[in-house]
């Protein structure tokens, strides 16, 4: 893609994001429940106190004025104070981003490796037992709700077997200095192999829970794309050239089969963001998803607005990524 075309694509994001902002802002305002009431919690606060709190939080102004203010501030990266934390929203959010990024990357890795490998195997041994097992598993994986699967995993591995932790990111004893915020990286940078393994153990269950649905989807996409690719003339021609089976499978067929798979993966990563909220809550994972869920319960308008905007930007960028990857894997496409 030419730099000019890329800039054009990025400019196209602005109206999309503006639209999302409008929806999020007014949806939050329409939701029943008053943050002031929720914050004070009891009836003894005087009406004057309520009023002054309302003014502090900027809730005394009419909704359209608040929206204009919000837009102006958001454009300069300023999202106001989190009601609950009494700290700038941007600061509260950035603290939580690395945990979510780490969880998402781990889930994606699991989903890509498991999904593509099983998809290829199922396609090559079409209608064999691997294919049947993988197809049934993927059906279960797609249908099973994340929170339920997560609880099952906790019950089995944390409660019954006691071999993996049920919640959190790392034991307190293993804490390491903040560098990237990704514990798997930071522990290695600090030279703490014990902490690394501990962080890894904490990551396994939530990442598996989150990655399962995506793995199932990628397996199905890869399987059908591989079956299609293996029936093409270029595979017969590659065989007639005397190439090895491995080269035909992994270079000739898979390179073509990955076109839909990679596109699906990039788009599906957006779905992972949504899954984060549930999985982080189930596993007590201190990430953005759980922060947002808490924010919604406490009517923490500024926090939720900023977080949703961040999700939206990520989602839209992931779609752009999908297009770029599609072009990389498919030389016939010029963006």
């Amino acid at each position, binding site marked *: 893609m030419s730099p000019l075309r890329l800039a054009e694509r990025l400019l196209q994001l602005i109206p999309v994001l503006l639209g999302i902002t409008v929806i999020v802002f007014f949806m939050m305002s329409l939701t029943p429940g008053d943050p002031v009431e929720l914050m004070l919690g009891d009836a003894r606060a005087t009406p004057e106190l309520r009023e002054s709190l309302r003014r502090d939080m900027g809730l005394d102004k009419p909704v359209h004025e608040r929206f204009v203010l919000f837009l102006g501030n958001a454009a300069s990266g300023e999202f106001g104070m989190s009601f609950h934390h009494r700290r700038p929203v941007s600061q509260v959010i950035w603290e939580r981003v690395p945990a979510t990024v780490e969880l998402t990357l781990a889930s994606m890795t699991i989903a890509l490796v498991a999904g593509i490998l099983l998809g290829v195997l199922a396609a090559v041994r079409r209608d064999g037992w691997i294919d049947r097992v993988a197809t049934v598993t993927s059906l279960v994986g797609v249908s099973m709700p994340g929170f339920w699967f997560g609880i099952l995993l906790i019950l089995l591995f944390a409660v019954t077997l006691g071999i993996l932790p049920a919640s959190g990111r790392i034991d307190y004893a293993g804490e390491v200095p903040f560098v990237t915020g990704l514990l798997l990286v930071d522990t290695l940078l600090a030279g703490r192999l014990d902490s690394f393994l501990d962080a890894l153990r904490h990551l396994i269950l939530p990442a598996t829970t989150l990655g399962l649905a995506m793995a199932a989807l990628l397996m199905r996409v890869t399987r059908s794309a591989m079956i299609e690719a293996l029936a093409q003339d270029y595979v017969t021609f*590659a065989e007639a050239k005397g190439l090895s089976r491995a080269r035909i499978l992994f270079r*000739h067929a898979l390179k073509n089969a990955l076109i839909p798979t990679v596109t699906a993966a990039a788009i599906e990563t957006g779905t992972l963001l949504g899954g984060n909220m549930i999985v982080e809550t189930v596993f007590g994972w201190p990430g953005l998803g759980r922060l947002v869920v808490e924010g919604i319960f406490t009517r923490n308008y500024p926090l939720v607005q900023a977080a949703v905007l961040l999700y939206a930007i990520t989602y839209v960028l992931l779609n752009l990524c999908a297009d770029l990857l599609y072009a990389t894997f*498919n030389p016939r496409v010029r963006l």
Partner: protein
Amino acid sequence: MTPFLAIRDLRTTFHTRQGVVRAVDGVDLDVMPGECLGVVGESGSGKSVTFLSVLGLVKPPGRIESGQIRFDGRDLARLTPTELRAVRGRDIAMTMQDALTALNPALRVEEQIVETILAHDRLPRLAARSKALDMLRLLGIPDPERRIRDYPHQFSGGMRQRVMIAIALACRPRLLIADEPTTALDVTIQAQVLDLIAAMRRDLGMSVVLISHNLGVVAEHCDRVALMYAGQVVETGPTRAIIDRPRHPYTQGLLRSMPVLSDLDRPLVPIPGQVPSLVDLAPECRFLPRCGQAAPECRREIPLLSMGEAHAARCIRVAA
């Protein structure tokens, strides 16, 4: 002269839900060193499956039921997959009907030709690349240093066909099986590609099997012709003999249905009826339902009957 490739009583079947399809049913064919053999027949006559069988490329539900494929003192039908892989591309190469689908759209031409060379020769990558460039140059692809970096879709139809032939010939095989090399091409480019294959045959001293549904194309380029119908060879012989004295009613019908430039007033006569289903064939002449000269004696298995000069036809009239 001993044949270089000898197919004897080859039977390839496809086991489908409708029954057993006898795609190749007792085919005998010889290819002599350096010759060009034309194999002619309509779709479903078994001409492509015969040569896919030679390379062991028939995929399930198809399989080689019986027969021998003698090549170089070995029976290709009995080789292990690894042994067969060493023959493919190195001793016997194949090109396909449409280069657009035969070339991998996601890989550069460079990779597709270099990997063929490296599959058979232990060479440094750079040496393989320069061999690849030589091959592209030999096939008349302009500016090969630049074009080798392109993807198949960036070539024109004729150039793409040349690229495919270059890949097939990259290891200098002794036999090229060209499956419908011109069908996907414009008429003007067809002649170029056929001349190119003829030139390569001379330059590399290889044998060529030209598979086509077009008797005209084959007649112009081949020393000998074999006509296939419903999984069997129905007539075989030197090209001249087949054109001048066709003995099988199918061959005669094909020739009558072909336009001749020198005699455009001659009416074209199509062959009535259609190719029979290859499931549950009765033991009789397969051309019987479409034959204008059928007799009661045709209701039995007819062998290929020789008329001398290596000319033979599967018709009772030959004996008479």
